[in-house]
């Protein structure tokens, strides 16, 4: 019995700690700054906030449905210097696996659920500075399930989600850094990772599917 975790540990291992969705955070910062401006102008704290309750935020919400960028690693990632020519593969790989596992928690997988690439691709526009290649690979056994935004290892990532039988493949996409080494693959905690760069973008595919399947996926995707 002594090897059972205590409640705190069990909860920490089981329950997600959330980060506020990026759009909500940006909206809150705007609110704070708007209030600053108003209070400076009036010389006193604002009694009410302009009810901007931004339409764009709601539009985003409607479109996005469920955005959760969980807190795990966020603080650490944002404090660490980002980029450079020697990206720490183990850190990145670990965070990618965390993000993948997190995405499998209820309601975390998809912000936009669509098997239609013409829906998924425009959805990313304006939400991220990368425009990942979105293709449906159903005929090759990798149906497109949808997309998501995430924040991994200091990168705002566009994430494409593909299915592989009962497995999910998360494809994280962000701008590649100069000197980034392509084609690394690794296995972390039983998950497979495959990395490639193309067109100035860095792609990481993460899945609990076996590595050869990931390679088959990459080959289908980059064609």
């Amino acid at each position, binding site marked *: 019995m002594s090897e059972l975790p205590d409640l705190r540990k069990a909860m920490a291992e089981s329950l997600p700690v959330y980060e*506020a969705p990026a759009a909500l955070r940006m909206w809150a910062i705007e609110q704070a700054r708007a209030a600053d401006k108003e209070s400076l102008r009036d010389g006193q704290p604002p*009694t009410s906030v302009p009810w901007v309750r931004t339409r764009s935020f709601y539009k985003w919400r409607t479109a996005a449905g469920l955005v959760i960028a969980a807190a795990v690693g966020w603080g650490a990632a944002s404090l660490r210097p980002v980029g450079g020519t020697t990206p720490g593969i183990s850190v990145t790989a670990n965070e990618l696996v965390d993000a993948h596992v997190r995405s499998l928690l209820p309601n975390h997988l998809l912000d936009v659920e669509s098997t239609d690439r013409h829906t998924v691709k425009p959805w990313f526009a304006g939400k991220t500075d990368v425009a990942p290649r979105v293709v449906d690979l159903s005929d090759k056994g990798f149906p497109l399930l949808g997309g998501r935004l995430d924040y991994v290892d200091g990168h705002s990532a566009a994430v494409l989600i593909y299915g592989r039988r009962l497995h999910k493949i998360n494809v994280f996409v962000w701008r590649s850094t100069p000197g980034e080494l392509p084609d690394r693959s690794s296995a972390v905690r039983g998950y497979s990772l495959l990395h490639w760069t193309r067109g100035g973008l860095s792609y990481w595919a993460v899945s609990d599917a076996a590595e050869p399947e990931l390679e088959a996926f990459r080959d289908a995707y980059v064609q």
Partner: protein
Amino acid sequence: MVRHADKAPDVRTAAAPQPGRFESIVLPHLGAGFTLAMYLTRNTADAEDAVQEAVLRAVRYFPTLRDDDARAWFLTIVRRVCFTAYGTHHQGTEVISIDAAGPQLVDDRDQPDAATSRLQVQQRVRDAIDQLPPLLREAIVLRELQDCSYTEIATVTQVPVGTVMSRLSRARTRLAEMLHDVVDFGDVA
């Protein structure tokens, strides 16, 4: 310079408006507020709405913040929004999550590998927390997941510390009933 955000001292010493104060003092706790809202509303859309409403209220009431605990202050607002606007208080054990409603797929006879059984344990912990009544759920989430002190929980939930301790104790007892075989509850069980 990295400051411990939880210990932001002496929040409003001067009467004059100080640009950027809200952003640096309250917004670091946005994630904590969203997390609490997620566990209270159990619904991403409601949690986002609640936090949004809480931010608007927090901006408005920021000049009244004299406490040095901005996190507890912001969580108090988030919680109040959740309870008043999103009917969290109407929830009880009768609300069973979709996950919890299904059959428990824990097969005790055969544990193929440690990873699978760990996932099953995690699901059971989530289900158990989910089934707690809101007042017990928020107490245990604030305490064990968000690492709040008893005093902070008392502030956030607006009850005396004694009530907080009693709720935590009841929460642990309820959880122990559901999870005694996978979690070590010490004396509680």
